[in-house]
């Protein structure tokens, strides 16, 4: 039983990581609490559903279109909306993303109705048994996608010029400006990339959850816990803390109490925040 709990915790953690890396980037670079991350995931899921139902294609094949669409949306959101409040009150930045979340989520409701929709893929029901525990092929694909996304992001940020520019903007925005980097464009790129990653997450989890206007909510909140616990500015930190949280939640639920497992996660977060404010893997200088 414990082995199965850990296995499903690993899967859960991988899904959290998938959803959180986009947020990690946005939070780390643009430095705003993006309340709309869950709603963006929802929008992306509806994008998958739209293409699935209209063109009858496998949800995985919607990846390029969804990613492109989300990237464009992200770029737009940053340049048109977030940019306007960047140097203003922190609370205003928070609220603009909340307003955005409301508009996006209820826009989906108004457009698509409140019904639950699901997308199916041929490998839906396939289960394999590595190491004696049961795992669905779909979740393995999600795990693979998660690892790839983290790796991609890591390499992008470390090895490419644009990625390095983004990192500079994240760590030293004033120096970045002086160095000739167009900070606002980097913000827009980061936001676009963060949304694109949400798109990837949506495609990969679409066979696993019914699509309805509130589908992104839980993920949105957990994503924050994951990102902050991982340490601001650390994408790999976010991935690692996602795994820890996923496994912790699963084991606690299975071995102790299911109903209190979410409270457990939040409580652990509070304690860890107090004990290690930089997050588990963050660097020593904090930007808050």
């Amino acid at each position, binding site marked *: 039983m414990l082995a199965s709990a850990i296995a499903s915790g690993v899967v859960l953690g991988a899904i959290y990581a998938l959803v959180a890396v986009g947020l990690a980037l946005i939070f780390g670079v643009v430095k705003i609490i993006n309340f709309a991350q869950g709603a963006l995931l929802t929008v992306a899921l509806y994008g998958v559903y739209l293409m699935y139902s209209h063109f009858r294609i496998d949800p995985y094949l919607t990846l390029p279109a969804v990613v492109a669409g989300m990237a464009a949306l992200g770029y737009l959101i940053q340049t048109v909306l977030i940019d306007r409040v960047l140097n203003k009150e922190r609370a205003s930045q928070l*609220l603009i993303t909340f307003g955005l979340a409301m508009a996006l989520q*209820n826009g989906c409701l108004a457009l698509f*109705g409140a019904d639950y929709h699901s997308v199916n893929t041929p490998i839906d029901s396939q289960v394999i048994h590595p190491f004696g525990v049961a795992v669905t092929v779909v979740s393995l694909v999600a795990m693979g996608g998660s690892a790839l996304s983290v790796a991609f992001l890591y390499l992008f940020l470390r090895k490419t010029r644009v990625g390095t520019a983004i990192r500079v903007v994240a760590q030293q925005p004033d120096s970045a400006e002086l160095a000739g980097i167009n900070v606002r464009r980097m913000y827009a790129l980061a936001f676009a990339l963060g949304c694109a990653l949400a798109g990837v997450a949506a495609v990969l989890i679409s066979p696993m959850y019914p699509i309805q206007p509130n589908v992104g909510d839980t993920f949105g909140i957990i994503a924050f816990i994951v990102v902050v616990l991982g340490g601001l500015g650390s994408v790999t930190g976010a991935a690692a803390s996602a795994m820890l949280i996923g496994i912790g939640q699963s084991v606690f639920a299975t071995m102790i109490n299911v109903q209190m497992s*979410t409270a457990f996660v939040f409580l652990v977060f509070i304690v860890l925040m107090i004990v290690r404010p930089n997050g588990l893997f963050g660097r020593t200088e904090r930007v*808050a």
Partner: protein
Amino acid sequence: MTDISAPPTALARPARLRGRGIADAGPVAGGLAALLLAAAAALPLLPGISFYYLQIGILVFWFAMLGTSWSVAGGYGGMHSIGNATFVGLGAYTSTLLYVDFHLTPWLGMAAGMVVAALTALLIGYPCFRFGIRGDYFALVTVALGQVAYEVANGATAITKGSQGVPVPYAATPSALDFQFGNRTQFYYVAMAIWLVTVIVAYRVRRSHFGFQLLAVRDDEIAAARGGINAPRRKLAALALSAALTASAGTFYAQFILFIDPASVFGITLSVQIVLMAVLGGMNSYLGGIVGALILVPASQYLSTTFAAHPGVDLASYGVVLVLLTIYLPYGLLGLLRHAPRWRSVIGW
């Protein structure tokens, strides 16, 4: 040689720079404000006024008191809590459970709720401020706290009756002692009274030495500490006060709606709405709550009514309105006055 252990005299506040608060408003603005208050008080006396309008009024006062309570910690102290629903819920559940299980009058229950909320604020605030958790991190801790509170209320069925909630039993003959009024109009006046008390407390705090120190901590915690102000203690006091005021609103809600459940009083949506009221009104001002509530509550009611037949359009529009307000009024409506010294002093910015 300068005695570095004595606090610099600059912190003995120079009165001429602080203004005279409300007294600076002058006869015109002051008269207008008095007129508005009188009109609000007279609203229920209008012949034939339907209770629905009074209910909107009660909602406005309720959100206003929540917004102003938030400002005491968030505006004055820079502690942007997105978890104040925790305190609303603590107030509501404390007074309701004491009433249902022990027949304690909700007025005393309200006091008990305020104490519980203040203690909770101290409990979460102490470790946070001791270890330097601030800004976004503090906000996320409060979000997590709100979620924990919600789950505990849902799960601790033996005490809280769990997810099914607690109905407040009708008193056989409603009396003020039961905090239930046969004449519903009295709820309006009670709401207005609690709101007034909250605003007056916020105003007095703003104008007090404590408030001055709190603002110093908000603006630059390190400099304030160097100036001899015990920052964590000030922040804790502000957070506890904010929590207590918020909890009183929770009790009012329970007695007015006569039903509470974890989702309605501990939800994160409520926490965010509270921040909305304060920030869109003007978060540093003790009047931010009422201004924000006066804009947002009628707007949301109007949208809800107009689009009743089209699910989602009303809330999507509300989201758009919020985005626009945040872009064009990033410091809130009262924030527009923040550059004029005289009005700054009046609104307590």
